[in-house]
């Protein structure tokens, strides 16, 4: 049905936004997100995409434009990275609270300081609790497919929440991959025009973003939290339908050679690709190692995580950010929470790895598995900045 092409993943992401027929794109350039918005800017300028491209003066304004456009009923898109996200973060939270179906790609990059343009998940963890649906992409195809899924879920009348696609900077943004494009007709069937529940309309005025007093605020937070949790069903439905349409099936948690594994590696994002090669090699040598790829970060799929991990002896979490002064990396914290109530829970060994673009080679996964056996002895709070020089 689709056409397979060799394409830089950023360009494929922009092409997906075009095919999703976005109405408003507001963005400020920042490495490594730049190619996505550059290409979208070209598509709009060349008349290939009938949208407003708003070249704003900051990321704070980028998300503000998306909020305004989305509130007026438009399909709005933006993307950013790292420091741009920090500047944008005030409005990122507000977008979720207003329940506006904006879609953003976060081209993951480390936070300053020291200044670094390279890839890790410290920016993702900055807005962990922002209330958006958050999905981590493992490869270019997932990014491309993810854009359609994101708009479909965000605009679902049962959901009405913004969706963020995490896309590893450089590892994905700047790499040419084999990607199967989907016919426009199929996209149009999958993604109907947006219907707004409430919108800014002079003929039917509403108030958005009102002040809440202490006697109401708690209820607003409960409503928002329940809405995010309830998005889980529609997220799965939309993946199922995408699978039926394209033959590419997605799940919140994906396992690879995980049956009877004594040690399970757990990754989010692009590391899952290299990890799967490492696991294949270890299995070929008879090592009982498997892989669990966590795709859906929010709402967190507790039940699926438990199901995937509880049979192992050791879970090796590959965290891509430091939680300074905390119990290790942020992903491991969630995994420990998920497993806490299990009677026979695996040891959770946490490696903070691949930060600010430091390579994680196939040999590193093998070393981490060996080291995990040693660290597991030290107890449940074991974590290490993998490969750090003394």
């Amino acid at each position, binding site marked *: 049905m689709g056409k397979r092409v060799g394409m830089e993943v950023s360009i494929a992401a922009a092409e997906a936004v075009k095919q999703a027929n976005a109405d408003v794109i507001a963005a400020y350039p920042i490495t490594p997100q730049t190619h996505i918005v550059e290409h979208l800017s070209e598509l709009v300028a060349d008349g290939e995409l009938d949208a407003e491209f708003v070249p704003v003066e900051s990321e704070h304004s980028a998300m503000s434009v998306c909020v305004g456009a989305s509130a007026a009923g438009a399909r709005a898109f933006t993307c950013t990275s790292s420091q741009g996200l920090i500047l944008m973060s005030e409005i990122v939270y507000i977008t979720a*609270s*207003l*329940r*506006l179906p904006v879609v953003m790609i976060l081209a993951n990059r480390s936070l300053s300081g020291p200044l670094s343009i390279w890839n890790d998940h410290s920016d993702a963890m900055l807005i962990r609790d922002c209330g958006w649906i958050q999905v981590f992409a493992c490869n270019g195809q997932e990014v491309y497919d993810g854009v359609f899924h994101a708009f479909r879920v965000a605009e679902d009348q049962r959901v*009405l929440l913004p969706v963020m696609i995490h896309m590893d900077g450089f590892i994905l943004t700047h790499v040419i991959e084999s990607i199967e494009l989907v016919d426009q007709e199929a996209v149009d069937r999958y993604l109907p025009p947006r219907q707004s*529940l*409430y919108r800014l309309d002079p003929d039917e*005025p*509403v*108030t*958005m*973003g*009102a002040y*809440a*007093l202490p*006697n*109401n605020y*708690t*209820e*607003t937070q*409960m*409503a928002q939290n*329940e*809405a995010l949790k309830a998005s889980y069903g529609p997220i799965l439905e939309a993946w199922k339908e995408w699978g039926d349409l394209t033959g590419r099936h997605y799940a919140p948690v994906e396992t690879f050679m995980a049956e009877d594994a004594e040690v399970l590696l757990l990754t989010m994002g692009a590391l899952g690709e290299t990890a799967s090669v490492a696991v294949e090699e270890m299995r070929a040598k008879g090592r009982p190692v498997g892989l669990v790829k966590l795709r859906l970060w929010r709402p967190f799929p507790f039940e699926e995580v438990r199901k995937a991990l509880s049979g192992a002896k050791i879970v090796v979490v590959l965290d891509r950010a430091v939680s300074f002064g905390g119990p290790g990396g942020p992903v491991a914290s969630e995994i420990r929470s998920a497993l806490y109530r299990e009677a026979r829970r695996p040891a959770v060994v946490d490696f903070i790895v691949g930060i600010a673009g430091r390579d994680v080679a196939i040999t590193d996964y093998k070393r981490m598995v060996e080291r995990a056996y040693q660290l597991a002895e030290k107890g449940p709070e074991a974590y290490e900045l993998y490969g750090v020089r003394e």
Partner: protein
Amino acid sequence: MGKDLLGWREIKVGCVITEAGNAAEYRTGDWRSDRPLWDKEKCIKCGICYIYCPEAAVVEDEEGYFSADLYYCKGCGICAAECWTGAISMVEEH
């Protein structure tokens, strides 16, 4: 608030408010610790209190004298501070 408080399920998606002007239900008078009292002997009906009240909570009666709408008056004391003849005094609420 003037109305019964909403449970979390009753809050509209995105906390949108669909009815106009419901800020009028908010009893800002609850904030008050001092209330303004007008002395008709000193009042010259100039209306400076009416003009300066930031909440439009000063009302004029048929005779042209002024008083506070205690549903909204926060007791800020601007009227008393601005009154040219010192006709307004702030009295502690009990």
